[in-house]
């Protein structure tokens, strides 16, 4: 796959995943949480061709759920639930995803509330 085609495929994959998380209401706005602008959680995922995660999503940022930060704990939990919800519904990925190299193709999903979007 050439660099141009690679970039186009990446954009397509980004749009597919983002659209499913939002349109299927798996991930919704969390702007009403305390100090919402600081909240952000990143999960690393990889998909298999049956429309499910190949492995359980892995929390990357923060590396661990903070014990003394209930809003962040809940935010991470909600992001995890969003992934589970969309996984139960089944992911629709463009066939090009499985041609992306080097395989397996890992994706970091960064969850933010609307108020924190930059």
């Amino acid at each position: 796959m050439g660099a141009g085609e690679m970039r186009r495929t990446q954009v397509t994959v980004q749009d597919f995943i983002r659209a499913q998380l939002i349109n299927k209401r798996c991930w919704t706005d969390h702007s009403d949480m305390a100090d919402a602008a600081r909240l952000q959680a990143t999960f690393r995922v990889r998909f298999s061709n049956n429309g499910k995660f190949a492995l359980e999503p892995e929390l990357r940022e923060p590396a661990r759920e903070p014990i003394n930060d209930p809003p962040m704990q809940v935010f991470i939990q909600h992001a995890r639930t969003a992934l589970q919800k969309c996984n139960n519904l089944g992911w629709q990925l463009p066939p090009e995803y499985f041609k992306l190299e080097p395989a397996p193709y890992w994706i970091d999903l960064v969850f933010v509330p609307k108020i924190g979007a930059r």
Partner: protein
Amino acid sequence: MTARKTLIALKNGKDPMRQFKSFVIAIAAIMGMITPAAAQLRVTVVGEEYVPMRIAVPDFEADGAGAAEIAAQLSDVLRKDLASSAVFELVDKAAFIERDLSFDMAPRYPDWQVAGVAAQALIVGNVIINPANNNMTVQFRLYNVFGQTQQFARQYTVATPLNWRRLAHRVADDIFTQLTGDAGYFDSRMVFVSKTPGEDPVRGRLAIMDQDGANAEFLLAGFTSVINPRFSPTDQRILYGAYVPDPKYPGATLLRTYLYDIETGRQEVLAEGPNSMDYSARFSPDGRSIALSRAVGGNSDIYVIELARRTQRRLTNDAAIDTSPSFSPDGKMIVFVSDRGLGPQLYIMREDGAQMNCPKGGRDTTCRITFDSGRFTDPVWSPRGDWIAFSRQGDGKFSIGVIRTDGSGMRILTDGYQDESPTWSPNGRVIAFERTASRGAGPKLWSVDLTGRNLRRMPTPRDATNPTWGPLLKVEAAQQ
């Protein structure tokens, strides 16, 4: 690894365990089971639309004489609490598939995941009345349906089943905390001034109710012209002003500020100078001090009074009218209203009166944070500390709004003929206020959440003004 291979490895100067680990890692990497240091693609997902979380709350199970009726009532109050927040959307009971839930068994998660139910959270509970001593125990479990796990469980025991309503609120608060990360606000009360339609607008009696409107009753039978009650953020005391006969001038009235303990009924005159009038009193976050406006010779300034010793400090000294002080939750800052800048605007200052860096630049003992054509009144610092609620009069309307403490991010949450007197819920997510819908209409209490969603009328027996939201009530139940 065989003994022979281990021996060969040792002879070659290599640690066999290290080699073995490297081998496993290499295989796992080949199979794609270990995540790399960096992903190939990064996708930012912004929550665009606010969607309430779907939650299923079947009636709690019951065990013991009279438990079934209480379980049904408690479940109903719990559902109403959660639904009233608009953070949650209740799953219709008619949609439930699993109807033989047991408190001691995990639910059948797929039954709660299917389309039509689609619950994200499920609450299963149990009410037990002990026939030996009439104690009541309420147990509940909160399940994460998509994660297929029990997220939280708790039980409360109280001496009498009469406390079932408070336990319902307490369970709702626990669930709210688990699912939002914020403290709840359901087990709290609100004091307000109750008005009888058609009566002299000056007349009003202090009243109290649960935050959901239940258990409304009058306080202080003798006082009929009460204004500006303010709940302590730490206990069940309130400050309020009352017009009473002036002993010096027969037929005239005098405004006094009182401190009243709802639990003990004890009350005392808080402040009364010979040639001054105190008003707009509000507690500090620890309940040990109050800030108020003191008018002397037609000029009002802000004072702080320490309650135990009644020591007083004057914080402002300006020819303008300085009024309506409200503390930040850490007690270090005060927001107040002053007309020193042509029309009432919001200002902040340090509680010790020292100079500070102003958000718009420069250093001063007071800093203006609103620069707007409207007239600002009733500022209240959020218990979270991040926002200040206010009333704003402008463009022919009275509105409730919020602004960040540095003066940025002003948002108008409501517009009405007359919306005023905001008060924060103890968790800083909801604002209650007084609304007069039109000329001649009676004032009612309403609430709106911090984002401007969920505008709701709060039920009161009569007309009502000046709401003040109390802290979460203390847990009297044994909790496990």
